[in-house]
C-alpha cells in the first residue's frame, strides 16, 4: 500500500512538472482585418523582430532610444504578477488589466466578450475620453483619471484604492503598449500594403515610425494651451441654470448640434441614426450581411454596435460632472461617431463654449443630475 502511495505521488509530481513547461506570454501580431494566410513568415519575422528590438517582450520590455517613457515604471508594470525579493511589486498590468485588455493591449483579453463596449484596443492610439482636441493623444492626467474613476456602467473598474505610484506605472505601460501598437500598424502598412523590400532599415523605422508616434504622444504634454481644453463652468444661480437648460433644450434640437439625430428627440438614445459603429468595429461591417459574416473571420471579436447614450439613465462612461459632459460635447468621443462641437486649432466649432455649457446643463437636467447652482469655478485654466 505504502509503495503504491509513494508511486502515485511521484507520478503526480512528474505529471505536474511536465505540464508546467508552458512558454511565457508573447505579444500577438496585429492581423485584424487581414487574412493571416496572406502574411508570409518572412514578413511576420521582419515585423516582430523589429518590434522586439524596439519594445522588447511582455516579460522584458524595453524603451526605444529617444522615446520619453519611464523604463523603470514600465518594467514594474510588466512581467508576471508578484514581488521580487526586495518586496517590490511587479506585473501590475497582468494583475489588473490583461484579463480584459489582453497581453498585447488589443482589447481582446479572455474576458473581452463579457463587455459592451469591448475593452479598449490600445494599438490604434485612440482613447475615447480625453481633454485633448480632435486627433491628439490623451494626456497622462486623462488616462490617470479613467483609471481612478473607472467607467460607470461598464466593466472598466475604478482603481482608486491603488497607490498613485501604481496608477502612474499602469498609465506608462498603457502608453507603451499604445506606442508599440501604432508602430506595429506602421510596419504592417510598410510591409504588407506598400510591399517595402525586406529587411527593413531599422534607423528609418525608428525615425519615421517609432519617434513619430512618440512625438504625437508628447505634443499635448509639451504645449497644453494649444491641445488641451480646460472647462471653466459659468457661475450661475438657480434661475440662471434654469435659463441655461432652456437654451440647451433649443440647441439640442438645433440643426447645428444634431444631437437628436442619434440621441433621439427626448434624449433616450433612440434617434433615427441607430446603425452606428466605432472605429474598432467599422472595419468589421460589410455592405451586405454576408459580407459582414465573411469579414468576421478576420477579427478576434465579433462586430458590436454602438448605442447612443440614453441621458435619462444618468450613466455617463466618461464621468457625470458638468466638466466631463462639457468635454464630451466640446471634443466629441474619439473613435466614435460622436462629433466634436467645439473649436479646435484651425477648425471653427459648430457651437461656442457658452452654447456647449447650455447644452451640458440640459443633458444633466435630463439625467436628473443638474446642480442647484454653480458658485465657483473649479478650474483655473483659461477658457478655450
Amino acid at each position: 500500500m505504502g509503495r503504491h502511495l509513494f508511486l502515485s505521488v511521484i507520478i503526480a509530481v512528474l505529471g505536474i512538472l511536465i505540464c508546467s513547461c508552458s512558454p511565457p506570454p508573447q505579444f500577438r501580431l496585429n492581423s485584424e482585418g487581414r487574412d493571416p494566410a496572406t502574411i508570409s513568415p518572412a514578413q511576420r519575422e521582419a515585423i516582430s523582430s523589429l518590434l522586439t528590438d524596439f519594445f522588447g517582450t511582455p516579460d522584458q520590455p524595453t524603451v526605444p532610444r529617444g522615446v520619453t517613457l519611464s523604463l523603470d515604471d514600465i518594467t514594474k508594470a510588466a512581467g508576471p504578477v508578484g514581488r521580487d525579493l526586495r518586496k517590490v511589486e511587479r506585473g501590475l498590468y497582468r494583475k489588473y488589466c490583461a484579463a480584459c485588455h489582453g497581453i498585447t493591449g488589443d482589447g481582446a483579453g479572455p474576458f473581452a466578450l463579457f463587455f459592451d463596449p469591448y475593452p479598449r484596443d490600445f494599438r490604434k492610439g485612440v482613447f475615447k475620453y480625453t481633454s485633448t482636441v480632435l486627433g491628439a493623444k490623451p494626456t497622462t492626467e486623462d488616462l490617470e483619471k479613467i483609471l481612478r474613476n473607472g467607467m460607470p456602467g461598464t466593466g472598466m473598474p475604478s482603481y482608486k484604492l491603488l497607490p498613485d505610484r501604481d496608477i502612474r506605472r499602469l498609465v506608462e505601460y498603457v502608453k507603451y503598449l499604445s506606442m508599440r501598437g501604432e508602430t506595429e500598424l506602421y510596419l504592417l502598412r510598410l510591409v504588407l500594403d506598400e510591399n517595402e523590400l525586406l529587411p527593413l532599415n531599422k534607423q528609418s523605422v525608428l525615425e519615421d515610425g517609432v519617434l513619430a508616434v512618440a512625438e504625437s504622444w508628447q505634443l499635448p504634454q509639451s504645449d497644453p494651451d494649444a491641445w488641451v481644453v480646460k472647462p471653466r463652468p459659468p457661475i450661475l444661480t438657480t434661475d440662471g441654470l434654469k435659463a441655461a437648460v432652456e437654451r440647451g433644450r433649443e440647441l439640442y434640437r438645433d440643426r447645428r448640434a444634431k444631437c437628436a439625430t442619434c440621441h433621439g428627440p427626448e434624449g433616450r438614445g433612440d434617434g433615427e441614426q441607430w446603425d452606428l459603429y466605432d472605429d474598432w468595429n467599422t472595419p468589421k461591417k460589410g455592405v451586405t450581411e454576408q459580407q459582414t459574416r465573411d469579414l468576421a473571420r478576420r477579427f478576434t471579436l465579433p462586430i458590436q454596435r454602438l448605442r447612443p447614450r440614453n441621458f435619462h439613465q444618468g450613466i455617463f462612461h466618461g464621468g457625470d460632472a458638468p466638466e466631463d459632459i462639457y468635454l464630451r460635447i466640446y471634443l466629441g468621443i474619439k473613435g466614435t461617431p460622436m462629433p466634436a462641437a467645439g473649436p479646435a486649432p484651425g477648425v471653427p466649432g459648430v457651437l461656442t463654449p457658452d452654447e456647449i455649457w447650455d447644452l451640458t446643463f440640459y443633458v444633466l437636467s435630463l439625467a436628473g443630475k443638474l446642480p442647484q447652482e454653480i458658485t465657483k469655478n473649479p478650474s483655473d485654466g483659461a477658457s478655450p
Partner: protein
Amino acid sequence: MKAPDSSINVQKTFSLPVTNWTCRLVWTLWGVALVLMALGHTVTTYGAGMVIPDWPTTYGHLPFLLPPKEWFEHWDIFLAYSHRLVAIISGLLSLVVAAAFWRTRQNLHKWLATAAVFLVCLQVALGGLRVLTGDLLLVTIHACTGPVYFGLVTVLAVIAGSHRKRPSLDEPSPVKTRKRASVVSIFVASLAYLQLVLIAQLRHVSPQLIPTAPLVIVWAQVIIWGILGAVILGICLFLPGSCRAALGRMGLWLISGLYMVNVLLGILAWIVNFNLPPRFAHGVLTVEYTVVQAGAAQAVLTTAFVLVTSLLFATSLVLVVSNWLRE
C-alpha cells in the same frame, strides 16, 4: 436463508469507538481547513498568490520565523504568508487525526484520514511548485484539489461525530429509495464540484486565452445552476417522503439554502467584478454602478461565492457518504 439485517450493519458502522477527543480533533481540523480555504480564496481574489517569491522559505525565513513586521507590512504578503502557515497547521493536524484514526478499528475513517493527509501534502506541493515555476496550470489544479480536501475533512468530521448522535435507523428505507437518494446526492455533488472546477478556470485565467473560452465557462456555470435548481426543486416537490428522509432532512435544508446563497452570491460577484451583463446594461435594469477594483465588496462577495460553493460541495459529499454508509 434469512437475509442479513441491514439495520444491524448500519448500527455497527455508526457505533464507533471514536473517542470524544478524536471527535474534537477532527472538528478542529475542519475549522482549520475552512480557514485555510477561505484564506486561499482570498489570496486568489487579491491576486496575491505570487507575492512571496521563494518556497518553502518566505523571504529567506523558515515557516513561523518571518518577523511580524514583515508579515504585516503588506496586505498581500500577510494573506499569502498566513495561507502558508495555516496550511502547515492543517497538514500537521491532518497527520494527528490520521494517527488517531489508525488506532481505531474503523477502516473507512482510517482511509479517509489518510487520503486527507495525502491531499494536503499534494496541495502543499502544488502551491510550492506554482511559486517556483509560476505556472498557472498548477494553481488551477491547486484550486480544484482544495475543495476535495475540505470535502473529505467535512465527511470525516460528520461521520466521526455521528457516534454521539445516532441517526434514527429503526425503520431503514427500502433499497430502491436508498439507491434513488444515492444517485441524487452523487449527482448534486458532481455538479457542485464541476462548478468549482469552472470557477477555478475563470479565477486563474491565462491572459493569452481566446475570449470565447471564458464565455463558454460562464454559460456552463449558468446551466449548472439551472440543473441544480431543478434537481433540488424536484427533490423537494416530487421525491417521495421516504426518499427525502433517506437523504436526511437536515442535509436537504442545508443543500437548498447553500444553493440559493450560492446563486445570489454568484450574481453579486459577477456584478462587483464585471458590472451588469451587456444585455441588462442597455435595458431597463440599468444601474449606475462603477466596479471598484480590490474593493471590500469585490473581495468579500467573490471570496464568499467560492467558499459557499465549496460548502455546497462538501455538504453534498456528506450526503453521498451517509447514503453509502446506510446502504
